């Protein structure tokens, strides 16, 4: 079985894994980072989104071995180490951008990457950027408002 090494939320991780182990399962089971959620395991819902060398990717569609040597940021690495919320997280709270919270980590990670690359998006760009993440509770109302708010902050 392949040995891999990667940096997850700033910590170096080494493991021997099956070649077929997904990055999502590696993060959840090997690293005990259970904030990355699996909503469909076929790359549509976006709940498992993480940053892989800065790019937002679906960790259910990436094998852990493909991430060898990479820097991975999960939802646990988005806020401050003291538990403080990032601007995107604060905006989701202020605008009621979450209810059950299951899709939320994927949205936070996706939006964090989106606003880094496009700090002043139009409403159309916001909706397009969010369209790769599914939420079943909020009707996206609070999520869209949260991205608008975070973009202004």
């Amino acid at each position, binding site marked *: 079985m392949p040995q891999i090494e990667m940096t997850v939320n700033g910590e170096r991780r080494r493991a021997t894994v099956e070649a077929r182990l997904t990055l999502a399962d590696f993060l959840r089971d090997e690293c005990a980072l259970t*904030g990355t959620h699996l*909503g469909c395991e076929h790359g549509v819902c976006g709940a498992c989104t993480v940053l892989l060398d800065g790019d937002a990717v679906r960790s259910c569609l990436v094998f852990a071995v493909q991430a060898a040597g990479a820097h991975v940021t999960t939802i646990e690495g988005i806020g401050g180490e003291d538990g403080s919320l990032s601007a995107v997280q604060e905006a989701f709270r202020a605008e009621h951008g979450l209810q059950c919270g299951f899709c939320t980590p994927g949205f936070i990670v996706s939006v964090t990457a989106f606003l880094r690359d496009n700090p002043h998006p139009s409403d159309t760009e916001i909706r397009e950027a969010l369209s790769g993440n599914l939420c079943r509770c909020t009707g996206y109302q609070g999520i*869209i408002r949260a991205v608008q708010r975070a973009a202004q902050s």
Partner: protein
Amino acid sequence: MSAGRFVGQSVQRVEDPRLLTGHGRYVDDVTVPGMLHCAFVRSDVARGSIVRVDASAARALEGVVAVLTADDLNGHAGSMQPTILLTMAGAPLRPIAGGDVRFVGEPVALVVAESRYVAEDAAELVDVEIDPDRAVVDVERALDDDAPLVHPELDSNVGAEMAFPIAPELQALLDGPDAAHVVRRSFRQHRHTPVPMETRGIVAQYAAASGELRVWMSTQNPHEAKHAIARVTGVPAHLVRVRGHDVGGGFGQKFFTPREELTVALAARRLGRALKWIEDRRENLIASNHARTDIGHCTFALDEGGRLLGSYFDHIEDSGSFPIGATGGAGALVGMLFTGPYRCPLASMRTRSVWTNTCGRGAYRGPWMFETVAREQMVDAVAREIGVDPLEWRRRNVVATSDLPYTLPTGMPLEHVSPAETLEQAVGIIGYDAFRVEQVRAWRDEGRLLGIGIGLYVEPSTGMMDPMGTETAVVRVDPSGRVTVALGTGSHGQGIETTMAQVVAEELGIELDDVTIVQGDSAVTAYGRGTGGSGTAVIAGNSCRLACAEVRAKAVDIAAHLMEAAPEDLEIAGGQIAVRGTPARAVSWPEVARVAHLETARLPAGMAVGLEATATFKAPPFSWSNACHVCTVEVDRATGVVRILRYVVSEDCGVMINPMIVEGQVAGGVVQGIGGTLYEHFVYDDDGNPLTTTFMDYLLPTAAEVPVIEYGHVETPSATPGGHKGMGEGGAIGSPPAVFNAVADALALAGASIDHTPLGPDTILTALNRRSPRNPSPRDLA
């Protein structure tokens, strides 16, 4: 009613920091020592005889612990019916298919292995041979005399039937002679499914030494799960503990305890091990409960002015094969609520719940909502037929405040509602009359199809049957003065830890941060109804209120004793108990708590030590909320695509605890209804094979499609202490007919009509191509 310090305020949610940072705890996040992983082998045939289930290759795979079939489990299982429905006839539920299969996705074996990966490998190695037979897929065909029986043990494909007699006066109206207009229409609602973002799942750990069965589960209803699991496994209920922690949505799918969870718990008991099963998305789509598959034949008899004189509603609901609950449906309630917020002197109905070889039906946000779908779509059809604007028809027929209390023709009493007010508020916000002008102009000048639609309804929240109307709160003040409240609820996104803390902080005059809500755990909370049926605000909220009143009274007695004042002269505010008008003479809440627990010699003589109360609230059978949805759409004549232009909801749920959360509940329901009407469609072929088994085929709405939802509020308090009314389901009840009516309104410009959903491009283009050639084109009108 004016807002309180906390009740009525849009405070930020207590749950959010953990959920935003990835520190929620959902069932798949639970790991226990020695835990094994499960995968189900499922039937790929809708109806047929099982010839062979050969698990030898699977059992030989390294890492496989067991492959369990019907022979291993079914004989050990107690009743799988929900507690509330134990005495009702229903489908012959079973853990694993034995002898035959009855829908595609039915479990035929359960693999237990050391990892999920190995369990799935082994599931593929189980050799299942099924001799296929003709499946019953179409619900109307299931009613044919020569239709095969879905359940050979039963003598009919009709699982339940209820019919009210037709009074001679009503018959005379329906037959025509006594009415100016008689209109008949039929509507079909298609199959869709709740789709919580977190699929179902369970961890069940049997500890043989103590006899305990410890369960972690994605559930809306931990106490029901505890009792259902106890019945099925034979473990005494007091030795079963069910914990929910965070639950990633449910919408009804996780209210009762489904087949797979019961089967895994039974397997854990039989094997004496800890088992985890996490449903995958394909399983969730094909084998978790489906919903909304209904047919309604409606007849309205009206006078010259279009006033409703009599109604008849004939309803068929598709129960699938193994529904959750007796029939999985709400047929009786659908029929009884059909006339809804309109005056109607005479009505009757028939409703039938019918088995088919499809996935079983179950609860989904407003399980009875077809009454609103059929009625509101009927209202627009009737208005068009008799030449009255649908808004005007509603104004002539809606139950006005002066009509209250109004008894529905089926006997249900309607009070503390405001359908006429929400109707006027909603059409006012959207600018109904101006839209009508623009609609005509856009059609005449540009040939564009714009439409406007209304969905008006009353929603019966709280509980008609035990234990649906009852909740118990335990309010404990610890020696520091902080408060812990235990509730039997199963929050799955509603923010119960926030709203119930708001109620408690308000009632005890303390800060929100001083209150913790503990829920979702059967061992540390009193037996309760769970979270569903739009009940929490009224039922749990008032149980909190009652318990707080007891705690407050005792705290005041202690403070009065400490200050040598009369209890009736004291008031609680700002975290202290003070002499009214003399705030300097006060005892702090922590001091009262300390005395109650730690300086008990200072308590009044004879007073019991401690500061806590347990109170149970039983709600009246109905706490009606109501709302009006109005939306505008444009239908693209070339592509058949529907775009929602504006969406307005005017809601009356009485006193709101947290308006932000109320609007969030409305928004979520509305978008589920929009998705259900325009995009989501669970499709079977004629042989009962599911065709929409991934999110590439079963289309959920995304941020790119949804409109901005605009809200109006009317506040008519209920008769219960807090004045609240349940509203969690309403958004999903009013939106489907509002969208349908707007599309139908737009299509009517082109002489086209629709009578079924979903309203995908194919349905729209078919309707446009079928329109009467005599209908005017834009050129004719110009």
